[in-house]
Structure formats: C-alpha cells, structure tokens
C-alpha cells in the first residue's frame, strides 16, 4: 500500500472557534502550525461527560489526534497543553483574546501553511494571559498579523510618490492600507488626515521589537484613537466587520459605568458620614 496517506495525524493546534453540528457534535476550527486552518468534527462534545469538550474551548493550545474522514477529519484524542486559564478570569483580557482569535480566523485560509500566524497568536495569548497591557498586545498583534498575511500597511513612505512622509502631515487610507504625503493625498476618495502622534506610535509598534514597543506610555484617550484607526484597518483588510471588536468596547463601557457608579456610591457614603459628623458637632 505504498503512497497511501496515513489514517491519523497528530498535531499541535490552537482552537479558534466552533459551531454546533447536530445534537451533540461540533465543528471545531483549529489553527495548526503546519496544516494551516482546518475544520474538524468533535463528536459528542455537548454531552456533560465528553472527554474532549474541556480541551476544545477557543483559545486553548492542545495536542490533537485527527482521523481522516471523507469530508472532514474527526478528533479522536485531545489534550490541552495551555488553557490560558487566567484569560477566563478577567473580562477585558477575555474579550481581547476573542478579538485575537477572530482576526486569526478571518485572515487565514484553510489548509495553507501558517506557521508565522500560529507562533504570533501563541505569543500574544501568552502575553495577554500573563497580564501584559491589553492595548500593546492587541496593537502589536494586529500589525504583525498583517505582516504575516501579506497586508503590511505602509506607514513610512507615501503610497504614490514613495517619499518619506512627515508624521504630522500625513493622510491615511485604510482601504489601501497606507499613507499619502500632503501633495499626493489631494482629493483622493477614502483618504483623510491622520493624527501625527497616532501614526508615530503605530510606526514604533511596527518597527520595534515587542519589549521595546511595550515601553511606550499612552494616555487612555490616545490608546482609544489608535484602537479606532486599527479597527478600521482590520475591517478593511478582512472585508467584513470584526465583531469581537464591538464586544471589547462593550466590556470596557460596562467597566467604566461600574467604576463611575462605585465612585458615586462612595461619594454618597462619604457625604453621609460627613453629614453625621457635622450633626454630632
């Protein structure tokens, strides 16, 4: 039986997402270092006593054994290597992780080698899980992912004339993924001025190693502006909305609302105490 492909393969993988299949099964989308993105069938995982279910949650890095099926491979064994449990304990980190996973899913194609994307996703989940800043991890991930998938945005020279562009006078086109100098920008559709500080930070994130980029300190307001530029770019590249991005924002809004509410409650408590003290005097 020479030349016959093996019936099972063992591979490392990160779970990107799953969807339901029939009563108790799921189709699980895995990102693997050598076989790219693959859809596999996990049988019986919706049953409480499934031996596979706990290992096949999105964001888990695992060792998996796949039996070759006619249309899709079937998971026969799964063993988690890293579950990144700390991600599941904090809503901001969890929503950021969901965003990383969705981007990896949107920007990769099935069965195409994607070792670079795999290593990048693994490194970024590790950074999020150990408590690195959500902004720096997400932004450097986005830019490195664009590099790895061939969508590297041009942030230094003008897309038209190729001359270096001064950050304070640059215009930005998310659709074309790059900047124009003031002269070439003219009245091009979809091109608008970009904040110089935002561009400088993005240039640093794109060119510096992660550890150095992480030393850049940003105000919340600047971080939000950078986030908005990158979300628009990712939307343009993926040619569809990245839905986890709005959940990242919803989670943040809920936190800000909660903090404001708590501060208000605290202020009221302080006022009440002061009123009592004043009355006693």
């Amino acid at each position, binding site marked *: 039986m020479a030349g016959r492909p093996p019936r099972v393969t063992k591979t490392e993988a990160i779970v990107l*997402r799953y*969807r339901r299949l*029939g*009563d108790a099964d799921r189709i699980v989308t895995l990102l693997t270092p050598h076989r790219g993105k693959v859809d596999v069938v996990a049988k019986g995982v919706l049953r*409480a*006593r499934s*031996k596979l*279910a*706990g*290992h096949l*949650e*999105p*964001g*888990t890095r695992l060792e998996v054994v796949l039996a070759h099926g006619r249309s899709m491979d079937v998971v026969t064994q799964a063993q*988690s290597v890293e*579950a990144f*449990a700390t991600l*599941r304990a*904090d*809503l901001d980190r*969890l*929503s950021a992780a*969901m*965003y990383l*996973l*969705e981007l990896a*899913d949107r920007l990769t194609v099935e069965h195409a080698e994607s070792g670079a994307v795999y290593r990048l996703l693994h490194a970024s989940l590790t950074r999020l899980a150990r408590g690195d800043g959500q902004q720096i991890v997400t932004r450097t991930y986005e830019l490195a992912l664009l590099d790895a998938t061939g969508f590297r945005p041009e942030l230094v020279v003008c897309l038209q004339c190729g001359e270096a562009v001064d950050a304070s006078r640059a215009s930005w086109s998310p659709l074309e993924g790059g900047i124009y100098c003031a002269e070439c920008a003219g009245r091009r559709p979809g091109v608008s001025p970009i904040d110089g500080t935002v561009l400088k930070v993005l240039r640093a994130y794109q060119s510096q190693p992660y550890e150095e980029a992480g030393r850049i300190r940003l105000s919340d307001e600047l971080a939000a502006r950078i986030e908005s530029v990158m979300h628009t770019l990712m939307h343009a590249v993926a040619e569809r909305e990245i*839905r*986890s991005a*709005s*959940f990242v924002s*919803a*989670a943040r809004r*809920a*936190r800000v*609302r*909660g903090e404001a*509410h*708590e501060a208000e*409650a605290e202020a009221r408590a302080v006022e009440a105490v002061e009123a009592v003290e004043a009355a006693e005097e």
Partner: protein
Amino acid sequence: MSPIQRLVDAFHRLPGIGPKSAQRLAYHVLRAPVEEARDLAEALLHVKESIVLCARCQNVTDRSPCRICADTSRERTVICVVEEPLDVVAIDRTGGYRGLYHVLHGVVSPSDGIGPEDLKIEELLRRLRDVDTEVTEIIVATNPNLQGEATSMYLARLLRPLGLKVTRLARGLPAGADLEYADDVTLGRAMEYRQEV
C-alpha cells in the same frame, strides 16, 4: 411537489433529522390513523399560536407572568440567569432550586455576531430596578465555555454596582467522570473548590 415529499421536507428541516429519518417519519404519519395526524398538526399550530415570552423572566410560556413567576411559594430574593428556556427545565428538574429565573435567549458570541445588546439583559436590569424588587442575589448559570464565561463576567460587571451579590455555578468534575481525561481548567477548578467529605 407531492404531498408526501412536502411532509418529508418539513421533517427534514427539524434539527437532528436526516433524510432517511424524515422519510421514516413521513411514512409513519401516512400509515397512522387520521386522528393521530390531526392531533400532531393541531399541537404544532397550538404551540406557535399560544406561546409568548413571560414579561418578567422572558421564558416561553402560554401565559404571562408564567407559572414560575406567579408561584408565590418560590423565593423572590434570588434570580438564576440562564441561556435558554431548556436550561430552566434542566435546573428546575433538580428540585434543589426554588428561586426565580431569567432567560437571556442566547449568549455573547462575537464570532456569530451576537453581542450583549442582542440578549435579554435590558429586561433583567429593568426587573432589578423595579421598586418592588426583593432580589439580593443573581446566580449566573450560563454554560461553562468561553462564551458563557464572557457573558457571566459581563453581567457581573453590570450587576455588582447595583449592590447585588453575583454568583456563578460551580465548575468541577461531572458525575461518572474519569480524572485522567479531565482538562486542566476543570480539574484546577475542582481542586480549588474542593469540599470536605
């Protein structure tokens, strides 16, 4: 299209019914007495025409407020938040819970385009803001998977500032499980929340 084929196709659209099962069901109906077929048809129509969402807990019911919300013998200080109506059935079957429920009709799942605004969260907040509310604790009983965790943490973020105790169902080993096959997260939690025997 022939009447039989129409019936086969209708069964085939049901979840978990393949083409062969659909054929078997259709031929069963064909051979069954006409009363049985009429009963089935009426039951199907009746369920669609009479079922509404309970104005309080959002569960499916034939009257609003539903039987659980209207039951005065149930505890009014605690609400168990679940993803789907079937989860209410599952929890109530245990007999160990006598409080109220709230059905979200889904779970936060960004990759499927479902955000918090698509769930019955606003309805829950409205219930809790009600001046007559006696609720002091919210038990979040979403599934112990990524989406379920995200939903529970999001709810906790909204509800804690209201001064409510927000709890989550315990996670651990299922009855009849095998330690060898347990995943790290489950086993870790089971160890963390171990109990004295």
